Structure formats: structure tokens, C-alpha cells
């Protein structure tokens, strides 16, 4: 999902940076003092999740679970993903610096969209419908992300269009796996701690 430095055109980089600053800035405003440890915990969970490898077909893929992250964090997904990417760039040298904005948007925006669309449904439903909603959130976020990655590549030059198609196609199996995973995770959270799934539930106190 990451794009490295040097591949994108400056227009795409600047657009990504501007959108990234808006998302991160507004997300930070939504985090009040009491919510800070909770948001940090969540961004750490999603960082650790990105180190988990699951078998997908003949290969394995690491988890992204940006759909689940969006449902849990809402607006705060932008700073959470940004912090994760910054950490990877600085301590592992993975990803890039000039593309931080683009990468943040590519991963966080789909999760945020899922939060807007799916989380009102999740608060009300249970059982089969909840699993369906979870699947849609998990698979949809990955699908949107791969499309955004493809779009940023294609907008940088005609020659990347084949690569962009390949990125989208290669993520179809990942979409299925992440969908199932997200549905299962949501099912468990709903059973054990339903308050976390209320709108902006993670940003509020459990008690």
C-alpha cells in the first residue's frame, strides 16, 4: 500500500500533503485530553496489526484493517495513521517522507468513509447484519485504498496505469480476507464491549 519517494509527480504529492494536513489537523482537534491515551492505544493496535501476517492464497499479506480502524476512531483515524506511517518511515526507513501525505490519505480516507457510512448501521444491528456490515467495511476500505493508490500512480504518469491496475487486482483476495477478519473483530467487540462501537465510542470514556 505504500508508495515510495520519487515515484509520484509533484502535483500528486502536494495535493496529498494538503489533504493530509487538513485531515490530521481536524482529527487532532477531535481528540480531547481524556481521549489521548485511548487514541494512542488504538493507533498502536493498528500498528501491531500491520505486523501480523495472514495466509492469503499461496502467499501471505500483512493486515491493514483500515476499515476497522475507521469504525473505531472516526476523525481520529487521520492522525493515528499518520503517526504510524511516520514511525515506519523514521525507525524502519519504510515508506517515504515526501509521500507521507499521500500515503496517509490513501489509507485513512477509506477508513473514514466507512465510518461515515457503516458505523450508523453497526450501532443498531446485530447478528447476521452486523457481520455483513463488518465485511463491507473491511473489504470496502481495502478496495477504496487500492483504488486511491492506483489513482495516485495513474495521475503521476500514463506509464503507471498498468501498475495501478495490477495494484487493484492484487488486492481483491486481500479484500475478502480483511472483510472476514473485520466482521469477526466487530462481532467480538460488539459482544464484549458495545460502547466502543457507538458513534465516536472510542473517543469517549467507557464508564
Amino acid at each position: 500500500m505504500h508508495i515510495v519517494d520519487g515515484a509520484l509527480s509533484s502535483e500528486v504529492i502536494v495535493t496529498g500533503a494538503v489533504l493530509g494536513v487538513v485531515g490530521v489537523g481536524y482529527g487532532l482537534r477531535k481528540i480531547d485530553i481524556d481521549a489521548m491515551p485511548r487514541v494512542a492505544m488504538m493507533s498502536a493496535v493498528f500498528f501491531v496489526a500491520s505486523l501480523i501476517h495472514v495466509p492469503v492464497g499461496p502467499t501471505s499479506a500483512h493486515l491493514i484493517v483500515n476499515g476497522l480502524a475507521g469504525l473505531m476512531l472516526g476523525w481520529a483515524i487521520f492522525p493515528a495513521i499518520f503517526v504510524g506511517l511516520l514511525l515506519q518511515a523514521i525507525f524502519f526507513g519504510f515508506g517515504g517522507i515526501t509521500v507521507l501525505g499521500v500515503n496517509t490519505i490513501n489509507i485513512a480516507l477509506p477508513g473514514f468513509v466507512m465510518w461515515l457510512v457503516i458505523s450508523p448501521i453497526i450501532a443498531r444491528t446485530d447478528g447476521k447484519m452486523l457481520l455483513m456490515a463488518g465485511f463491507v467495511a473491511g473489504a470496502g476500505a481495502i478496495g477504496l485504498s487500492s483504488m486511491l493508490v492506483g489513482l495516485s500512480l495513474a495521475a503521476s504518469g500514463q506509464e503507471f496505469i498498468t501498475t495501478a491496475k495490477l495494484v487493484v487486482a492484487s488486492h481483491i483476495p486481500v479484500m475478502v480476507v480483511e472483510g472476514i477478519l473485520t466482521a469477526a473483530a466487530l462481532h467480538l467487540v460488539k459482544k464484549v464491549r458495545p460502547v466502543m462501537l457507538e458513534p465516536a465510542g472510542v473517543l469517549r470514556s467507557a464508564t
Partner: protein
Amino acid sequence: MIDGTAVLIPSQSMTTIQRIDPRFRLLAAFFLIITAVTFSSWQPIAILIVIAAILTGFAKPDWPRTVKMVLAMDGFILVMLAMLPFTVSGQPFLTLWGLQASFEGLFQAVLIGLKANATILVLIALVGGMDAIMLGRGLQGLYIPAKLITLFMFTIRYIDVLRREYLRLRLSMRARGFAAGNNRHSWRSIGYLLGMLLVRSHERSERILWAMKCRGYHGHMHFGALPRRQSRDYCFAAAVLILAGFLIGLEVACPPLG
């Protein structure tokens, strides 16, 4: 792997680069990377790679790990780079399975590969040796919002805590005979594992909040003041500026690749 002890404890080794003010190092890295990404001829990028590699040798003597990091990144982008000659149209130099590889595409792939390597090496050389506290202080000195830095510092701490939690849960799954395979049961089980991780971390963050409130937490991290800027910091800044000027001159003098 980020383990708490490695990045949270102030680093003991103080090489020349590590003695330089973190603000200057962060700004220098950012400046050099942005400059390198805009180059269109290969010579200045190659020279930047060599200089960054030499600096890395001084800043981070752990060579095997550094090389592994760089190679991992290169392996990651290899597929994309290998496809470029075939997708860019232009003067063909090779025909493979009916597909034509063009010089233009090859040059573009080389340029992207060089830029990615220059970026990672500059980062490792100038920022890689910093521990988290130093980094936080440096970022704060550059007027990054305090909330973002607080989130950053907390996240670094919790990653280690949660990784341990994850390994514990994973161990208990293994004790019950779970081996991840290619089936729905495995994916669902890992989903439950993730859900459990979320629930436990939510609980834990609650306890942390109360503990922090007892100790007077009111919204952000406190860092000690940065040491006063010294002449060596300005020397470093001047050296970076001269290097950038030299690279830009080279970029103007050399023809663009392709």
C-alpha cells in the same frame, strides 16, 4: 522491531552526528530529501547516496541491520520498477515474450530506484540514530503541534506493550493447537484476536488515563528544554547547505536522464 527499551531510553552512543541539535538534523534531512526527489539527472542523486552511506557508517555502526533495511525496501519496489520499461513507450532495447522494453522506461525506473535509496539513506544517516525522546524534542522545537507529538510519543510506548499482548494471545492460541491456514476459520480466529486486542487495549487505556491524571496529566508531554544551539550546529547547517548547493549545481550541469 520497535521494542520499548531501544527507542525510549536515551541512546548512549554519541557520535558526531548524534551530538548535533535534533532540530537541525530533522530540517536537514527534510531539505535534502525534498531536493533529491525533484532531481532529474542521476549524478547528483548517486553522489547524495554515497555521502549518505558514508554518514550512515559514522552514525549507525550496525551495518548488517542497515543493509537489511535498505534491501527490504528495494525488494518491495522491485516489481514496480521491473514493470516500468515495459509500460513506458519509446525506443525499444529488449523484446521479452512479445513485450518491448524501452530505454525511457528503464531510465525512469533507475531514477525512481535511486531516489528511494537516497531518501532511506539520508533518513538513516541523519534521523536514524535518534531515540524517541530526542525526536519528540526535535519535532517540538520545529513547532509541530503538541497534540501530535503527544500522540506520537504515547503510540511508540504502547506499540511495545501491545506487541507483547499480541504475542501472549498468539501463544495461547498455539497452545490450543491453532495454526494459521488458508481457510475461513483461521481468518475469523485472527479477527477475534484483533477484536480482543482492541477490547483489552481500551480497558488498559482507561487505567492509564486515571493513573496519569493522578500524576497531574493535562494534555501533553513535557520535554526538557533543548540545549542551546552551538557553533557545531551552525557548521552542520552550513555543510548541508553547501552540499545541497553542490548537488543543485550538478543537477543543472548534467543532462536529465532519458
